[in-house]
């Protein structure tokens, strides 16, 4: 079921493997689930003329982002036969190699979890008012531009 009001999706700093494991573990009591799909966004150490990216500092229009994330969640539950859906996005600094986005969909049969996960990831990238500042070792930065 979709939550009936916006819940927090933001985590300060990286999303840890331990947090992901805990999320998975919590679903072991939901015995109608047959399939989970997880998408994880990881910060790349892309090399630009300024050097290699050491991390990304995320900021967001938080209240607006939570309302839109809620709408995306409601739409996903209307469109797919889901048991659960969770979205987590980092704020503040996430180092290269660490995880900044975690989308988790679960359903009885794999079609719904698989397709809902991609649907949600695409909408998050397009619609959530979140910005990344790519950080370099020399304390300079450039604002991240997502591929369209």
């Amino acid at each position: 079921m979709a939550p009936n009001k916006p819940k927090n999706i933001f985590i300060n700093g990286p999303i840890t493997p331990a947090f992901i494991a805990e999320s998975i573990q919590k679903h072991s009591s939901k015995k109608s689930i047959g399939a989970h799909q997880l998408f994880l966004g990881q910060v790349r150490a892309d090399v630009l003329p300024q050097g290699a990216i050491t991390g990304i500092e995320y900021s967001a229009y938080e209240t607006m982002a939570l309302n839109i994330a809620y709408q995306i969640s409601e739409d996903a539950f209307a469109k797919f036969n889901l048991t659960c859906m969770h979205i987590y996005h980092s704020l503040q600094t996430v180092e290269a190699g660490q995880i900044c986005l975690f989308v988790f969909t679960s359903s009885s049969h794999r079609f719904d979890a698989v397709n809902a996960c991609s649907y949600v990831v695409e909408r998050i990238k397009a619609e959530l008012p979140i910005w990344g500042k790519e950080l370099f070792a020399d304390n300079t930065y450039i604002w991240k531009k997502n591929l369209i």
Partner: protein
Amino acid sequence: MALINIICFGPLSDLMITTTCEANDLSSLKLQLEDTYPDIKKYTYNMAVNQRILTACLLNDNDTVALLPAYSGG
């Protein structure tokens, strides 16, 4: 004239834009800001009035207008 709160995000947050402004409607606010801070025009951005992205509307006292350049989450 309505007294409007302005908030800027992403690269627009680097431009030291005012946090309050007087305007009657969104279009005139946009012109006024671009006139005062011409660097804004280097960016493609949307404007949200009280969290809703709009292209034109009348403004009231205490409305919050956010300047939203292209998102880069994920």
